[in-house]
């Protein structure tokens, strides 16, 4: 197969198996942590902590399991853009719904 010179995209992210097992161990640890944290009263922090753990788990899955860390920059942009848009969707919608009563504008 001497005619296949440009194989960087195919062969440059062969990770050692230990990398996957390490991520798996972390995912398990965070799963236990998130269930445990749900039973502890953190006041207003319960929801942010839960979401933070989910985001950490998600980032690990994307970077290692989905090989984004070793992918072309375009993949970073596509993957990043989807979550940026998701963030806009959720933040702006919540912002709208939960600030409607702040200003007492008659007839709104």
């Amino acid at each position, binding site marked *: *197969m001497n*005619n*296949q*010179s*440009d*194989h*960087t*995209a*195919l*062969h440059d*992210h*062969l*990770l050692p*198996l230990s990398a*996957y*097992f390490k*991520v*798996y161990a972390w*995912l*398990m640890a965070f*799963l236990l942590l*998130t*269930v445990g944290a*749900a*039973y*502890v*009263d*953190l006041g207003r922090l*319960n929801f942010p902590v*839960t*979401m933070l*753990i*989910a985001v950490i*788990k*998600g980032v690990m*899955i*994307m970077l*290692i*399991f*989905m*090989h984004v860390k070793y*992918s*072309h920059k*375009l*993949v970073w942009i*596509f*993957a990043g*853009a*989807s*979550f940026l*848009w*998701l963030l806009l*969707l*959720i933040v702006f*919608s*919540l912002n709208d*719904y*939960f600030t409607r009563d702040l200003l007492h504008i008659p007839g709104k």
Partner: protein
Amino acid sequence: MSIAEPRVEHHPAQLAHHFEDLGQQHESANLGMWTFLATEVMFFGGLFGAFCIYRFTDPVAFAAGSHHLSVLWGTINTFVLLTSSLTMALAIHAGQTGEPKKQVRYLLLTMLMATIFLGVKASEYYEDYEKHLIPGPSFTTDLKELGLPTDVPEHTVQHTQMFFVFYFFMTGLHAFHMVIGLGVMAWMVLLARKGRFTRDYYTPLECTGLYWHFVDLVWVFLFPLLYLIDLHK
């Protein structure tokens, strides 16, 4: 005027003629898959957004709804699905090293995990059915059965029902994705058995893996949002 010599190379059978080489073909397929996944993020994202609006509008109703779900089964299912993501990653690794037997073995393990997940989900649905928690005319309005305080306004009952609308729609859509994933994986098993995936060509395997990890990713957010609301209270 000379005509450019046609390139007479012994190109690999899997290489489509409009690509320079397998590396470029692989990158294009990969980016295409990510484009699809971006639309999937938007698809699920609308539901997540709507869920958040309702949840923060009536936290009491959503906590009451959430407390009907089994944290134990939810945790077991998350464990099963995360493990299936690991076996899928190992299947792709076996693709990258060109080992068909391992590809088949890990794909079958992933399919086994997926089936266990769906089985657990089905039994959870059945329990909800027995407890009259399926939205619609048979949805219970009994405050005690719903686990709501007796002094809540009428719309809180409706919002508890809304929780189950989201629960069934989101987990149902997720389960539907898993069923499709099972079909695609079965197809990959057939190809892997024929030895189609080698060190130089494992693109379909990797795209299947991306899809499967995405399904896992959705669940990583669904699980805490649906199962773990205000458990400390």
